[in-house]
C-alpha cells in the first residue's frame, strides 16, 4: 500500500503537464496507443522523459474519464492488438485552453527570470 501513495504523488506532479503532452501528441499524430505516446514523448524529449506504465496509463484513464480522449481496441500495422486513444472535441477545446495558459505562464516566467538575471 505505501507504493500506491508514492505512485499517486509522482502522478500528481506530472498530471498537468502530462495531460497537455498527451493531448498535444494525439492532436498532431491522430489516434495512438499507449506505447506510441510514451515513445513519442521520449523521442521528442531526447530520452529525458521516460514514462513508466504506472504513470502513463492512470493518466490516460483520467483523461478518458474526463471525456477528453476516447479509447478503443484495435490492431497495429504489425497486427498486434492494442488500445488506441483518440482526442475528442472536448479534448481539443481543453488543449487550446491549456496551450494558451501554458504560453501565458512561460511568458511570465521568462520575464521574471530574465529580470532577475
Amino acid at each position, binding site marked *: *500500500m505505501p*507504493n*500506491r501513495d508514492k*505512485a*499517486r504523488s509522482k*502522478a500528481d506532479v506530472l498530471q498537468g503537464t502530462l495531460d497537455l503532452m498527451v493531448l498535444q501528441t494525439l492532436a498532431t499524430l491522430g489516434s495512438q*496507443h*499507449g*506505447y*506510441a505516446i*510514451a*515513445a513519442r514523448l521520449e523521442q521528442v524529449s531526447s530520452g529525458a522523459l*521516460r514514462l*513508466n*506504465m*504506472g*504513470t502513463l*496509463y*492512470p493518466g490516460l*484513464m*483520467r483523461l478518458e*474519464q*474526463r*471525456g*477528453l480522449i476516447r479509447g478503443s481496441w484495435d490492431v*497495429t500495422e*504489425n497486427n*498486434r*492488438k*492494442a*488500445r488506441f486513444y483518440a482526442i475528442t472535441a*472536448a479534448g481539443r*477545446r*481543453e488543449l487550446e*485552453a491549456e496551450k494558451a495558459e501554458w504560453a501565458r505562464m512561460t511568458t511570465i516566467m521568462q520575464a521574471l527570470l530574465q529580470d532577475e538575471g
Partner: protein
Amino acid sequence: MMPRLLAALREWIARVAAIAGRRRDDADLERELRAHLELAAEDAERRGQPAAAARRAAAVHAGGVAQAMEALRDQRSLPWFDDLARDLRYGCRMLARNPGFTAVSVISLAIGIGANCAAFSFADTLLLRPLAVPRPAELLVAGQVNPFEDSLESSYRDYVDIRDRSRSFEGLAAYAKSTAGFAASVDAPARLTIGLLVTGNFFRVVGVQPQLGRDFRPEEDQVPARDAVVILGHEFWLQQFGGDPAVLGRTVRLNGADFTVVGVAPAGFTGVDQFTRFQFYTPLMMWPRFSPDAGVALFEARDDRRLTITGRLAAGATIAQAQSELATIGADLERAHPDTNRNSRLLVRTELQNRIAQAPPVATLVAMLAALAAGVLFVACANVAGLIASRAPMRAREMAMRLAIGAGRGRLVRQLVTESLLVAIIGCALGLAVGGAAIALFRQIQIPVDLPITTVFALDRRALAFSIAVAIGSAVLVGLAPAVRAARTDLTAAMKATDAAGHGGRRQWGRRVLVGGQVAVAVVLLVMAAFVYRGFARELRGGPGFATDHLLMMSVAPKQLRYSDAQAQQFFERLAVSARGTPGIVSAALTRYMPMDGLPPSTTIVPEGFQFPRGQESAVHATSIVDEHYFDTLGVPILQGRAFRAADSIAAPRVAIVNEALANRYWSGQSAIGKRFRVDGARGPWVEIVGVARTTKYTFALENPKPFVYFPFRQRPAESMFLLARTSGEPASLAAVFRELVRALDVNLPIANVRTMEELYRMRSVVVLDVITATIGSMGVMGLTLAVVGLYGLVAYAVSRRTKEIGIRIAIGADRGSVLRMVLGQGLLLVAAGLAAGLLASLGAGPLLASTFMSGMEGTARANAAAFALVAAAVLMAAAIAAYIPARRASLVNPTEALRAE
C-alpha cells in the same frame, strides 16, 4: 473554468459509476499493459537487440505491471470505497461463516436497541419533542409559580408589567386555554372545542404566520370584548370546512357569540402545548366571552393568575440573564403591590423544564424507563463484547497473519469495526421492529376526551435517528476495543502460539466481570419489574375508592350558549330531575369534576387556626362542586358528619365537605366537623365543614392521597357540569337516552364526554398501568434472557478451551460427576456474585419507585423479601440451566478424542 469543472465532474461520475460496475475490468487493463510491453519489446528488437534482452529492457523501462495495475485501480474508482466494499464483503463472509455468533450478537443488539428506541419514543412523546415552531429552544415560559400545579401562571396586569420592563426577550406573549362551544353558523349545532386566547403579538413571538388570511392586528388586542375575530387551527379548518379558503370573512359562533374568521394557522402548528391540538385562536381581549363570570376583572385583578407567558429570547441574551432580570422585576412588583404579589416569585423555564415541572411523575417514569433501557443495552453489549472476546484468540492469529503479509494496522482496525458495524446495522433494523412493537403497545394509552388532546407515540424521524445513533455507539463500544487490541497484536507471539491458551488470564477475568455485571443488571431489572407489577396490581385491586360499574356520565356547559349563572343552575337542576324520572336510571347526580377525567379545578383556602409555614398564608387544593346525590351515586362514603342536602342553598350558611386527607392535614387528631376555612383567598367568605368523605383516587390510580374539597352545587355556580347516573342495566345502552334528555331542554347545547365510568377508569388507569407493567416486565425478561445467553456463552467457551484438560482429568480417573460439578460450580459462582451485587443495588429500587408513583409502592419488608426471593430463584434457575448444558457436554468429553484433537 466551467469546462474544466465539468471535466472534473465527469471524472468523478465515471469513478462512482465504476463502483456500480460500469468499468473496465482488471483483465482488460492488464491486457493493455501487456500489449505495451510487447510493443516495447518489438520496438527494441527492431533496433537490433536480441529478443530476450529486449523483453527485459522493456520491462525495466516500463515498470512493473502490478504497480501500474494498483495505480489504475485507484484511478478507476474510489479507493476508500473499494476498501469499504471489500471490508463489507469480508465481514459478511465472516458473519455467514459463524452463524451462532452472528445470530446471538444480532438478536442481543436488536433487543438492546429496540428497548432504547421504545424508551426514547416514550420520552420524546411525553417530554422531549420540541414545539412545532422555528428555533423552539429560544422559547421560554415565564411567570409566577403556581403552588398547586407547579405551572408558571400570571395575571394580565403582571404580564403587562413584565412585557414592558423586560429587555432580554425579543417579545413576550401571554395566553390562556379555553374550551368553547363552536358552531359553523347560527343554526348549526354547537360542538365542544378547545382554543387559545392569545395576546396580539402571540404568532410573531412564537414565530409562525397564518397560512391563510392575516395575523391579529395590534388594535384587536386593546379593548376588552370588542374585536370578535378568530384564527382557526389548520387541522380544525380541514375537518370543519374541508380546507375551503373561502372561510376567510365567514362568521362562526363561539359560545353563542359571532366571530369573524380572519386566518388559518399553518399546517403543523398546533399551539404551544405538546398534547393539545388547538382548534381556534382569538385575541386575549375576548376573554370575557369565554369566562363570563370573571368579566373584565380578568384584566384588572393582579392576583387572578390564569395566563401563561411565553417569550422568545432576544439575540445574544442568555437564560440566566432573563432569569435575573425577571427576578428583579418580580421583586419590584412585590414592593409595589404587596397585597397581591407578596411571596410571588417570577421564574423562567425552558419548555422542557416546564414540562418536567408540570408532571414530575412523568419525568421520573421517563427517567426510569431510560435507565432500564440503558441496562438492557448494557447487558446486550456485554453479550456481544463477550462473544467477540471469545473469538479474539482465533482472530489474533488471522490478524497477525495479515499484518505479517503487510496490511496496515489502521486497515485492520477498520476491518474489525466494519464487522461490528455490520452486526449493529442488522441489529438496528431488527431493533426498530422491536421498538415498533413497543410503540404499538404505548399507543393503547389514549386520553378519553372529546377534545383533540392526543399523545402521538410514533417511530418518527427522531426515534429513528436516535436508534441509529445507539446502534453506531454500541458498535464502536463493543468493536473498537477488541479491534485496537487485535491491531496491537504482537506478531511473533501470536504466530508462535499453537492455540490461544496462552492469552488467557486477564481477558478471561474481564469476561467474568462482564457476565457477573450482566446478571446484576438483569436482577435489578427483574426486581423493578416485580415491584412495579406487585405494586400496580395491589393498587388496582384496591380500586379507586368509588364504584366504577353501572355508571354513565355526560358533560354539558350551558355557559357556552351564554346562559346566565341562574339560567345555567336551573338547566342543570332540570336535567338532573328529568334523568331521575327516566326508567333504567336508579339515581342521578351533578358534579363539576369527574374523577379520572383530567385535572380537577382548584380553590384557595385558609383553614381557621392553622399555622402555615413562614411566607405562606393559604393553600390551593383540588375541588369539585357537587349536588346532594353525588356521594350516594358514586358510592363514596361520608365518614363523619353529613352529605350535602337540598337545603344547602344560596340562602343557607355556606358549607363544604372535605376528604379525610384534607381533614388530617389541617385538623390531625381532631374532628374536622364544625371547623371553618376561608375560601377564594385570605379575604374570602368563611365556610363550615359539615362532612368528611373517604379519600378516593382523583386523577390517577397511583396518586398519593390528595386533599380535596367539595362545595354544594346550590351555593357555588359552575360553568359546566357532569351528569352522572347509576343505571340498573348496562350503562352504555342509555347513552342515547342521555343525549335526548339534553335535547329536550335545549337543542343547541353541545354534549360531551358521554361514556361509562368503567371505560373512563380503564382508559385512565388500568391501560396505562398495564402498559407500564408490560414495558418494565419485558425489559426485565429481556435482561435476564440476555444475561443467561451471556453466561451460557462464557461457560461453553471455557469448556471448549479446556477440552484437553478435562480429557486428561477424565483419563487419569476423575469421574464425570466431579467434572460436571466443577464446571457448573464455576458458572454458578459467577451468577451468585452477580445476584448478590444485583440484589444489593435493588435495595434502592423500592424507595425510588415509591417516589415515582406513590408511597404504597414501597411495600412491606416482607413483601420486598418475597420479591427478592422470587427474582433470586428465577435467576438461579435460568442460570443453572444455562451453565448445565455446557457442563454436561464437558462431562461427556471423550479423553482419547480430546487429546487427539490438537
